[in-house]
Every structure is written in C-alpha cells, then in structure tokens.
C-alpha cells in the first residue's frame, strides 16, 4: 500500500504533464475546429445545393463508418507513403477534428432544424437578412438544445484522445504506458491515468450544467412557442 502510494505520487507529475501539454490542448483544439467544421457541414446539409449535400453526406458516412484508430493510423503512418509527413500532434489534431466535425454536424443540423419555421418568419418580418436571422434568432435557440448532445461529444473526445498514444503522441495515456514499461506496475499506473481522465470529464460535466443553467434562464422555450 505504501509502495503504491509513493509510486502514484512520483508518477503523477509525468501523467499530469502529459495531460496538460497534450491531452487538454488536443481536446480543446480539435473540439473547436471540429465544431466549426461541423457547423459548415450542417449548413451545407440544410441549405446547400444537391451536389454539395451529397458531398457532405459522403463525408459524414466515411468518417462515422470507419474506426477512429484506423483513421489516425492512415494519417500518421499512411500519408508519409504519398509524401505527406506529419508530426504526431498535427496528425492527431487533424484526425480528431475531422472526426468531431462529422459527429457534431449531425447534432448541429438537427438543432437548427428544430427551431420552428415561425421564428425565421418573425425575424424576416422585422427586416432581418438570412445571416442576421441565423445569428440573432436561430442559433441562440439552437445552442440551448445543442448543449447536452455536444457535451456528450466533448466528453467522449477527452477519453478518445488516449488513442493518440498509438501514433506516438506522449499524452496522458502514453505517459502512463512508459512508466509501466520501467516500473512493471500496470494496475496502479492505469488506474491513476483513468482517475485523471475522470477528473477531466468531471470538469466538463460541471461546465455543462452551468452552461445549461445560463442558457435556460429565459424559462421554458416550448411554452413560449404557442
């Protein structure tokens, strides 16, 4: 027991470093870029022409239909054979961004479509352009509905970044693997890593509750609609 605790204490700075230098930035950046990508794809799916809609659907189909780990391997190990060599971090960032984009585009498409048509008409009736209606009227309402499903994606992403260990990124999980390789204490190190992931997702869950509370301050939306 004593031994376990001291191993945890001595390994913790290394794991924390992996989390703070790689896991957290990778999560934040790929979620941000993925969200932007997802928003773009959602707009194409909702308002695009027939060809661009088909292209967007193809993209979502490919990215959702293949394993994330395989996608990361293609980007990091596969692309060099066609002359594109990427470091581990950019390779992982691209992989996760593309993946998050595919999943969030479906969420964003659904929440934008869930805002009643009458809200568009009300916005148009006071003279708004399409862009003004989108920004001022539709998105704020869609955002509120989007928080729980997007939080799901975000929390999954934090945990999925452990896959980046397989493409040599020295993030939290890989840091644990390396210490296991010299200490031969897999149980203690992997449990420790799991606890740090748990702490990170807990922070996100708390942020989700706060955000929902903030966006929910106007009271029941549905009641106001009819």
């Amino acid at each position: 027991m004593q031994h376990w605790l001291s191993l945890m204490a001595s390994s913790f700075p290394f794991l924390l470093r992996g989390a703070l230098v790689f896991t957290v930035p990778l999560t934040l950046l790929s979620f941000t870029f993925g969200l932007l990508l997802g928003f773009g794809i959602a707009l194409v799916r909702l308002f695009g022409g027939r060809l661009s809609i088909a292209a967007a659907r193809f993209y979502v189909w490919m990215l959702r239909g293949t394993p994330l780990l395989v996608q990361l391997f293609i980007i990091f190990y596969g692309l060099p054979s066609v002359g594109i060599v990427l470091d581990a971090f950019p390779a992982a960032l691209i992989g996760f961004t593309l993946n998050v984009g595919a999943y969030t585009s479906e969420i964003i498409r659904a929440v934008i479509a869930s805002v009643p048509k009458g809200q568009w008409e009300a916005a148009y009736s006071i003279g708004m352009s399409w862009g003004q209606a989108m920004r001022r009227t539709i998105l704020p309402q869609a955002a509120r509905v989007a928080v729980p499903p997007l939080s799901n994606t975000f929390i999954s992403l934090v945990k999925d970044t452990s896959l980046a260990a397989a493409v040599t990124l020295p993030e939290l999980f890989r840091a644990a693997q390396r210490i296991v390789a010299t200490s031969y204490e897999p149980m203690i190190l992997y449990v420790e890593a799991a606890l740090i992931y748990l702490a990170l997702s807990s922070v996100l869950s708390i942020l989700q509750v706060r955000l929902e509370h903030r966006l929910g301050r106007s009271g029941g939306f549905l009641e106001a609609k009819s």
Partner: protein
Amino acid sequence: MIKLTNIEKRFGALVALKGVSAVIAEGTVTALIGPSGGGKSTMLRSINLLEIPTSGELTIGEETIVFQSGVKVDGKAVRRLRRQTGMVFQNFQLFPHQTALANVMEGLTTVLKWPADKARARALALLEKVGLAHKAEAWPATLSGGQQQRVAIARALAPSPRVLLCDEPTSALDPELSGEVVDVLAQLAREGTTMVMATHDLRLASKIADRVIFLEAGMIVETGTAREIFTTPRHERTRRFISTLTQRDEVGVDGGDAS
C-alpha cells in the same frame, strides 16, 4: 399606399391566389375574411413577401417589385419592401430567448443599427402603449397569450412600418385574452395606423375594419366597407359566409383556425 396588381401565387400544382388586385389606402384598416384555404393568409403574406408571388406586381410606398414566373427576385429589394411592413402572427412568435424589451428592440438595433439607448427608449414607449411597460424585463414564457401578442404588436411597430399586417391575431387566444388584443388594435386604428388583417374574428373585424375583402378559392369575391359586407353583402356566397360567422359567435364558439 399599398397596391397589389394581379398577384398570383402557386404552390406546385395548387393555385393559392388567382390574380388578386387591391389598393389599400394609408390610414385605413382592411380585414381579409373568407373560408379556410381561401387565400387570405397567402394574400397577407404576399404583402411582406414571406410568400413570394409567382407573378404580379406589388407596390408599397415608393417601392415596386414585379414578379415573373421563373425569375428570381433580388433579396435586397425584398428586404427593402419588407422593411416597410410589420407583422403580427397567430402564434405570436416572440423570440423566446429574449426579454419582452429585447424583442421590441431587436429590429431597431439589429436591422436599423440604432444605438441601444435610443432603441430602448422607443421600445419602452411602445410597451407602455400596449400596456406592458411593467413587463419589459419578463421572458415570453412567463407572459399570458394576450400579453405575448401585445409585445408582438409592439415589436412589429418598432421600426415604424408603413403598414401593420396581422395574421389571425386573436385566433390563438380565448375570448377574454383576445379582448385585450382587440382593444390595442382598435387604439392603433383610431390613431390612423394602416393595417391589413386576416381574421375569423367578427368582433375584431366589425370593430376596427374600414374595408373588408372577402376571399374564396384564391379570388376576391367581394370588397366593400365593413358595414356593407356585414349587413348588406351583394353576393349570396358572402352572405352565407357572414351568417355562419355570426352563428358561431352566437353559440360562443371561438372562430379560431390555423389557416
């Protein structure tokens, strides 16, 4: 002046308006009545171009747009014309994520780019006018239907439109709540606000309309003063329709309809 010339609106194979022409003078209140599906909502929505007519010509003030089948209308021209109108919807359609005050300010700050304090002053004055100054900071979800509709009227009036369009403004309200909305609209009519309203509410139409247009099957059957249409209609069809409305009112059935 608002002028519709030979406005036709098709939805696929369905012809919702079959060449409707009308002139609406400034300062008058016009009620569009008729059976559901008769085209009154479509005619109203053609005036602020929520429905783009398939063909015909629409003039509001100095702006005119000619519509031709297969020719796409310029979005800027649509917005220029639309900005001279305000609209009140059957289901209010307040922005649920904004307070009553913010709803009324929205058109002024976002569309007309007014500074916030100027917009706030105008919005408060309008809420005062519809009797809801004390609800300025309330969320739409906490207001009664009648209150929501009064806020919606203030929102529509904020950019000083040339005409206020009302699409069944009292149909989603019970008689008591619709009374407060009728009172506000009657007040506006007395002040000379130009209004066009599609309605089933005989009380509303007879109380405030100067002119009545009776539409059926996408065509104008009869036009006249409110008194003429309600008491001495020329057409048998109009007479029958008016009598069904009066009967409904006598037995106390609300004339609500989602058309």
